[in-house]
């Protein structure tokens, strides 16, 4: 499936801009982000911490609260515009048409409520007519679906009695209770150890496959993207700097930031020989973004090039299916990268 020829988009985000108005100014967390999501598509959004991934997720869900504001843009879920919709209408959509899987399951569950209470709340909030017994049966069913052993008995347990992986399964069960069209998974596995990560991802993959649910998977873990996603957007300083299918992106990254990200994945061989590879410098302050390319200060290609400092790069659709926000997208970073190592 290719995101580049939209046929039946379930989620269309266009020119979304979100900012946080704080004392020292406006922090532009999401700067003109657009993408479409097909039914059943798995989109990965990759970027460093603080690049605006979570702000984007919350903007799509309509959960941005002051001092955060959606300044411009549109979010269309199965044809319905969500931006500007009053909360009482959004409530009917959240958790039913579009759900959120939060990064840290131990923080995503209310410590004083049982697992069953969470599931029942998720079920009954959008289905007022369902009886207690039926809702309970459904909760057990959901818990079985996410492969929690002894589902019936464990319904009465509290979050602290569950392991991290099991908690994340509960969060997934809550999110999928009404078989939403789109699930936004914000770093769903960061809080888990590696083996549990793989289990939870496999489970999530199976569940969304069965339900034809589209997934926006937000992560900084490139391995997860490679494993799970059909297409990838690389986010930097609140913008998508590169968009491509997973395969294309991993084989021929065009944006220097993407190359650097891929280069900074630790490999055993490198670990044995030298320091961990890292991208020099730090992401720009989103409260004062200059006119040029946001990545320019850290970019090896931009050295000595005026245009990178003065003009934001446009992002034409390239023949190889890439969209790259870089003035010099065709250059190869391999040589430059080698020089610095």
């Amino acid at each position: 499936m290719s995101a580049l020829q939209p046929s039946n988009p379930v989620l269309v985000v266009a020119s979304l801009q979100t900012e946080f108005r704080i004392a020292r100014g406006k922090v532009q967390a999401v700067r003109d982000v657009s993408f479409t999501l097909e039914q059943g598509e798995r989109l990965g959004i990759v970027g460093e911490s603080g690049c605006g991934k979570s702000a984007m997720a919350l903007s799509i869900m309509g959960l941005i609260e002051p001092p955060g504001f959606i300044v411009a843009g549109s979010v269309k879920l199965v044809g319905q515009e969500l931006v500007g919709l009053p909360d009482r209408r959004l409530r009917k959509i959240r958790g039913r048409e579009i759900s959120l899987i939060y990064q840290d399951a131990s923080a995503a569950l209310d410590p004083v409520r049982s697992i069953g209470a969470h599931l029942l709340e998720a079920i009954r909030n959008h289905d007022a007519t369902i009886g207690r017994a039926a809702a309970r049966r459904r909760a057990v069913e959901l818990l079985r679906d996410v492969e929690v052993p002894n589902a019936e008995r464990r319904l009465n347990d509290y979050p602290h009695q569950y392991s991290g992986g099991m908690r994340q399964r509960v969060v997934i069960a809550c999110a999928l209770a009404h078989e939403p069209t789109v699930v936004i998974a914000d770093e769903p596995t960061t809080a888990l150890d590696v083996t549990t990560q793989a289990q939870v991802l496999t489970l999530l993959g199976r569940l969304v496959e069965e339900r034809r649910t589209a997934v926006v998977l937000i992560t900084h873990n490139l391995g997860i993207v490679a494993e799970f996603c059909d297409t990838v957007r690389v986010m930097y300083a609140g913008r998508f700097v590169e968009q491509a299918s997973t395969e294309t992106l991993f084989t021929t990254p065009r944006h220097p930031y993407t190359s650097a990200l891929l280069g900074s994945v630790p490999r055993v061989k490198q670990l044995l020989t030298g320091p961990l590879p890292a991208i020099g410098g730090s992401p720009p302050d989103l409260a004062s973004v200059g006119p040029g390319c946001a990545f320019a200060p850290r970019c090896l290609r931009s050295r000595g090039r005026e245009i990178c400092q003065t003009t934001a790069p446009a992002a034409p659709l390239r023949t190889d299916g890439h969209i790259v926000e870089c003035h010099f997208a065709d250059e190869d970073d391999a040589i430059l990268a080698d020089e610095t190592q």
Partner: protein
Amino acid sequence: MRFFISRLVGGVASIFGASVLGFIFLRLLPANPTRLLLGPLASPAAVRALRLQMGLNRSVPVQYWDYISQFFRGSWGYSYIYGRTVRELIASRLPASLELELCAFAIALFFTLLLALLTTYRPHRFLSGLTRGLALFGQSTPVFWLALVSLVVFVSWLKILPGPNGQLSAGITPPPVTTGMVLIDSLLAGDLTAFWNACEHLVLPAVVLSLPSFGFLVRLLRANLLDVAHEPFLLVARGRGLSRWKTYSRHALPNAALPTLTASGLLLAQMLAGSVFVETIFNWPGVGALVVNSVSNEDYSVVQAFVLLSACAYVVLNVLIDLLSGVLDPRVRRRAA
């Protein structure tokens, strides 16, 4: 169940500790009880006879055992000032105190909840400022000063409330005693005039008594609510499609209320002590006023019973609160077990 038992055992141990302390402090008092009773002119023989009769010649542990076993059998001694047994005396005074304290506690809790909710559900600059100011005022102003100033303002200047003459004005016939609490008795008797008069008498002391607790509780609850507001599980609950109010009432409030619940139990117990001033100033016929009177008249059996009783009340309240917070927070159960 294990949680329940461990709390209960802890409670009994605390009462034991309090009784030992109270007992020791009374032994340390310089006053000689026999001299107090018989007066300075009594013959040494009479003093010796009374010492024997009171058991003061026996060893201290035996005396303690006598005292504690008598106490739990309900014989708390005899008040030489009032000429009645201490138990009768306290029983006759307790309802008035309870009425005042429970009302004060209810007022403190009600305004704590109201203002904490109003100022944290949506940011409201004026109300927040007002609440913080009130809390600071309530917490930092001595109760006796508040009581006097409130009398000056509402009784002398504004003349909208009756003076500090107990539970009812002089012209009002007291309702027949059933519970001993005038508010309830007058309602039971259907006597609305007495009820209204009782309310007018109650409002000032109750509000004054409630202010310090209110100040403490509202600050605690507000801080906890503001704290919990950043918890991701609230965001996730909103993501499930819950309304702001449901998220707030079902998830934020129960989490934030736990420390407030614990503190409110302690404060209710502390009101017993605070009410000593308020009862004295408002001529409230409660236990607090009785104790003040007994202290100044060296009527120690009353004081001794009051000390142990308030310790019991304190411990019982704490155990109840512990159990309740165990019901509300599953993590408390696990930590205790």
